[in-house]
């Protein structure tokens, strides 16, 4: 347990250090408007990372989240044009996310297929449906009242409108994971599926619901994405799954399940956003920024192994030293 604690604490410290260093080398970085920019930039990532943490904690994964978000975004545009009501469009978009998640959950929990394979399949499938729905076109005539939510700030603050949504959901997911029976079940399933079954934990139902919630939140992220860019496009949120999973793993969640904290993941997302922003301010082109997500992903897998070897080495050395000095 202690190593896990020190992992998520380290990520938080890293975040603080990055912000501090950033403020020194670039005065723009620590400004309020840039904070708003960072929150907007990582909004969808953070949203999806919340339920993804639960999924990975139980030993499952959902790679289709970015495609789900894009499909929900496309449905938002399509339904807006078809119905003329944003309320209907929003419901349709979230509903799309729910259905996408339910399909993943059904295939994984009812048919017993591996979530990696299933969600690689639906990653392609849902993205394909985006093109089937909108073709190569984009929907860009959302009402201004709604798109303002996407890119303007809450009056009197530098914070984008997505901020309260992020705070409320992050707190809610954190509370559920760390304080409730559902959260205990998530840890338990990740540590041993078999023992969980013997303990009467409804493993399949729990996982199914986690897939559905992940789909719903991805749908929500699709709406946030559309409003931010004031358009619905079939290639929206492309590659976001990589950033989401990188953040969750870098936040200290074990890819094998059973280990992790919500604040570690939230710190990791904010760290990712800070580094991206800092590099952008230094003139690094946006497309090169996936280097960061890829790097984080690798780091989260490599660092624990290196740390373990290092501590084993130190233990051995201290023993040799102790033996040498009688």
């Amino acid at each position, binding site marked *: 347990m202690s190593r896990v604690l020190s992992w998520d604490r380290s990520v938080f410290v890293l975040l603080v250090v990055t912000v501090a260093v950033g403020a020194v080398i670039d005065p723009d970085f620590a400004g309020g408007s840039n904070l708003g920019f960072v929150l907007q930039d990582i909004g969808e990532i953070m949203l999806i990372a919340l339920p993804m943490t639960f999924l990975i904690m139980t030993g499952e994964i959902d790679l289709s989240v970015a495609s789900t978000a894009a499909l929900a975004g496309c449905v938002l545009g399509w339904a807006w044009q078809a119905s003329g009501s944003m309320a209907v469009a929003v419901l349709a978009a979230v509903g799309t996310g729910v259905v996408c998640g339910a399909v993943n959950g059904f295939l994984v929990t009812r048919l017993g297929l591996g979530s990696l394979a299933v969600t690689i399949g639906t990653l392609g499938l849902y993205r394909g449906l985006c093109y089937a729905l909108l073709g190569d076109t984009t929907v860009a005539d959302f009402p201004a009242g709604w798109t303002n939510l996407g890119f303007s700030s809450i009056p009197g603050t530098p914070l984008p409108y997505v901020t309260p949504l992020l705070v409320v959901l992050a707190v809610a997911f954190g509370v559920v994971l760390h304080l409730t029976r559902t959260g205990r*079940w998530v840890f338990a399933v990740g*540590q041993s599926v078999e*023992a969980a079954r013997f303990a*009467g934990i409804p493993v399949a139902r729990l996982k199914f619901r986690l897939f559905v919630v992940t789909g719903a939140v991805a749908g929500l992220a699709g709406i946030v994405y559309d409003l931010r860019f004031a358009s619905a496009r079939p290639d929206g949120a492309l590659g976001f799954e990589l950033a989401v999973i990188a953040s969750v793993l870098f936040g200290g969640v074990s890819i094998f399940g059973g280990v992790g904290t919500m604040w570690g993941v939230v710190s990791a997302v904010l760290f990712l956003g800070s580094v991206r922003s800092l590099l952008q301010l230094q003139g690094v082109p946006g497309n090169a920024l996936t280097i960061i997500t890829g790097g984080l992903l690798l780091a989260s897998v490599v660092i624990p192994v290196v740390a373990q070897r290092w501590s084993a080495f130190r233990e051995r050395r201290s023993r040799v030293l102790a033996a040498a000095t009688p």
Partner: protein
Amino acid sequence: MVDAEPLVRVRGAAKAFGGVQALRDASLELFAGEVHALLGENGAGKSTLLKVLAGVHRTDSGEVTIGGGPFEQGSTRRSREQGVAVIYQEPSLFPDLSLAENVFIGRQPVTGRGAVDWARMRRAAAVLFGQLGVDLDPDRPARGLSIADQQIVEIAKALSTDARVIVMDEPTAALSASESERLLDVARRLRDGGAAVVFVSHRLDEVFALCDRLTVMRDGATVHTCPVAGTDAGEVVRWMVGRELTDLFPKTETTPGDVVLRVRGLTTDGVFDDVSFDVRAGEIVAFAGLVGSGRSEVVRAVFGIDRYDSGSVEVLGSPLPPADPRAALARGVALVPEDRRQQGLFMPASIARNTAVVVLSRLARRGVVRERAERELAAHWAQRLQLRHGGLDQPVERLSGGNQQKVVLAKWLATDPRLLVVDEPTRGIDVGTKAEVHRLLSEQAGQGLAVLMVSSELPEVLGMADRVLVMREGRLMATLDRAEATQERVMLAATGQASVAGEGSAA
């Protein structure tokens, strides 16, 4: 037959893991041509000492020699090269390779042109199996081999590397009576071939039947070494626990109450067939039989882990839905599973978390699990079961086997069950804890709990049960009352052969 110079000598070995002193002052002398029993309660340091010989751990201090020279520690490879082979309780063979390939894995004999010499490998494996007196086909794949046969393959592997020291860590814990008997024969052959065999077992009758000398460990130190002849089980147990164990099976007499569990015609094709029985309140009913006779499968089906094809299960007069452990729990049925590490516990989680996991909704207020209530529950049961622990936040993976089993029991007793099903409740745990578990089960039955126990240990079955159900090949062969249940009758029913009946009698 025993040389004057020991083949292996461990003197004053100490080893600490973090703050835990696993070995304090361990000593062990092994001579060529002896079977040496290493005894002690769980947590006494046996496994740590064996892992030093296996090259998994290094001692912090103390001296280890082999063949008169220093023993090079800390490398499993070097241990093998120095002639030490360890046979684990559950070997890990390559399932898709043949037995011959498994024996010679990594050292396959080659022809002059560098290709694997299959014929020679097969012949050599057959010779090894012949030496061990077992009939195994070198060409068959390891998949589907019984644990007993897998151990034989491991032993053949050890022989093929000219191992001088063969360590068997609780080899018979998962074996049936006849398989154990065969393994003891193999151990005798190894001894007669001049090897030093270390034999770890919690079954003292085997120790007395097989071993030449014994070493008893307690709290990380060696407390006694002597020839097996001239001592007895009572004395050995006293050395192990450091106190007198008067009542190994403290049976509380009770009058059975209402029928709690009624099973009728339970059948899963090819696994068990037409099994019917009742368990009453206050009664301990034991399932006896050989490993693989279908006992665990029946109780798993009753609890709802597995589906069954036909038949019915009733709890307190109303039917229990199939394949629904949650429904079983809600109706007061608890199952302490066979494999505590895989099925009973969440190994990285704390004692408190493990104890509370089944009763979380009872501990929650407005959906939030009250950590204080969780700790109070765990503290209560830790005290009731005399759990030896380093704080309730300690991960259960750091507890000894016996203490882990106490946590499993605590977790299920905390559900306040009407029917407690226990599958091999004392497998692989030490004598002292065993007695505590028996006392606890007896006590709970005395208070009106219905207990259904699966056990492969006959003394436990005979000592604890009000009634004994004997299974063989998926069928219920006999139901014996406490008065009529004897070792012979149970074995007779379990094996279906008159000749086996007298064989199990202990030394």
